């Protein structure tokens, strides 16, 4: 126990060695005193915390609805201009069909039961290919991100693969797998995997080192280090890679369906587009393109946009 109040210090030797200085003990305070000090301190803290934080303003729901619906305005403008051009009879119907004509073509497909089946088939193929791509791309990305020599060896190939349009694989895939589902999945995977892997790598590159150090201090090792620290810390970049991976999966699928046409493959939006081309039915061609666009936008809005917004908001990267 510190014996006297004077002197206030006792200068010791020039090292941190214990040379028998007076017994060091905990200060002489009773639990009751600690509790009392604790109560006073918690009042102070509560006051300061209240001063230093402000309640997060919740946006009214109407603002969200307005924002969600505002892209419809752009669509309305495009359709109006399109309608106006067809009224002028600027181009013949077989070159520029009217909105009504396109609608009728799609409605015709719908009444024959072809539209829904095509859309469902295409979305199912893209979704399955996308999920397989995630399962394949994630371990590859983790391995390359965690083991530097692997990155040096395989990184450039991966970047190259990402540059390569996956349509280029269609002829090869047809020769390898014939006109089968395997061809379509091969092209989808080759389109999506490099994007997802590169996104994950970019996300891992951008992890602030302090989180990894904190993880080390907390004892995160092995699989825990990957699942509790590395992947969540890399998530924003990984998510961007997933979004791009989906986009590549979808466009690769359309290319594959358009080129690999066979009754064995069943229906798809790409096939619908090809049928339109063969029949010279411009309304069906435009209609199919619009359906492809619509699905792409729908998935971005319904799946990725909410996840991205939530991620950024949780981390304080977006208000």
């Amino acid at each position, binding site marked *: 126990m510190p014996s006297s109040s004077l002197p206030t210090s006792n200068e010791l030797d020039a090292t*941190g*060695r214990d040379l028998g200085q007076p017994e060091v003990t905990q200060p002489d305070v009773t639990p009751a005193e600690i509790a009392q000090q604790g109560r006073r301190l918690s009042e102070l803290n509560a006051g300061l*915390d209240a001063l230093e934080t402000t309640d997060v303003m919740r946006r009214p729901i109407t603002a969200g609805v307005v924002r969600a619906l505002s892209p419809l305005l752009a669509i309305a403008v495009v359709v109006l201009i399109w309608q106006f051009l067809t009224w002028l009879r600027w181009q013949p119907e077989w070159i520029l069909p009217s909105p009504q004509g396109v609608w009728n073509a799609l409605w015709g497909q719908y009444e024959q039961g072809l539209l829904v089946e095509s859309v469902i088939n295409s979305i199912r193929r893209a979704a399955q290919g996308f999920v397989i791509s995630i399962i394949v791309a994630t371990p590859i990305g983790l391995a390359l991100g965690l083991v530097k020599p692997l990155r040096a060896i395989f990184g450039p190939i991966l970047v190259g693969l990402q540059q390569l349009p996956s349509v280029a694989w269609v002829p090869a895939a047809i020769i390898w797998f014939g006109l089968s589902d395997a061809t379509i999945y091969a092209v989808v995977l080759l389109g999506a995997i490099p994007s997802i892997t590169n996104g994950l790598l970019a996300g891992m590159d951008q992890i602030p080192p*302090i989180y990894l150090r904190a993880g080390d201090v907390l004892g995160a090792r092995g699989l825990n280090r990957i699942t509790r620290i590395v992947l969540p810390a890399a998530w924003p970049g990984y998510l961007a890679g997933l979004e791009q991976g989906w986009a590549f999966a979808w466009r690769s699928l359309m290319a594959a369906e358009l080129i690999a046409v066979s009754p064995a493959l069943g229906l798809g939006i790409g096939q619908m587009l090809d049928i339109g081309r063969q029949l010279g039915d411009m309304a069906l061609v435009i209609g199919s393109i619009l359906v492809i666009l619509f699905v792409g936008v729908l998935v971005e809005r319904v799946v990725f946009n909410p996840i991205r917004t939530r991620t950024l908001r949780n981390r304080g990267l977006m208000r």
Partner: protein
Amino acid sequence: MTVTTGPVADSPAEGRQEYAVTIDHVSKRYVQDGPIVLEDLCLDVRPGEFVSIVGASGCGKSTLLNILAGLDKPTTGTIATSDRPTLIFQEPALMPWLTAGRNVELALYLRGGMTRAQRKARAQELLAMVNLDRSYNQRPHELSGGMRQRVAIARALAQGRSILLMDEPFAALDAITRDLLHDELTLIWEETGLTVLFVTHNVREAVRLGQRVLLMSSRPGRFIRQWDVRIDGTRRIDSPAVADLASQITDDLREEIRRHAK
């Protein structure tokens, strides 16, 4: 004691451990034949002791703490600790994808041996200890700097280690917040009986908190002087006794800094 060189001893060789931390003739170079960062450091820290280490930039304070935390190894000399220490940084280093409560639970999860419900209950207790029981569901970015550092303290306590290393933990905070955190840390130390090694640039802070203050030289980092702080009663950063001793230490620190002008 004899000079020993060799690998870091994580646990004491003998069954008896008198000191919580023993640093025995530790030196550190990052590059062979490169500059000496730490030179021949010796330090004994008793269990439950609060030791402050002050020094100017380049004294290798953070290197020393990294070695003690097991994130780095000494080039020569040995360290022995009675328990694996935990480390608090200048930045709170809270995981931004987790709420305050979940950050504490992460430490409990990695420590192991608790069910999810137990972890949650314990996390709430620890947050209450730093007066943040109402912030369980808040995200790090929604908290002030002082609140974040308090969550970091709760997270470190969750690890259940008996030695706490602190690397300038309050340097980035404003004076009022820092003052309250000093009180908070003192209370936690009194309540838990932790052994604390507290590294800082701030001499008054070192005297305000420590039972012993060590002054380090820079390039190479050596302990050049130590003071046994004997101030009875409640210490404040502006207590005359704290200011007295701090000015003595500051004189020595300035002398040491001046040496580098030549």
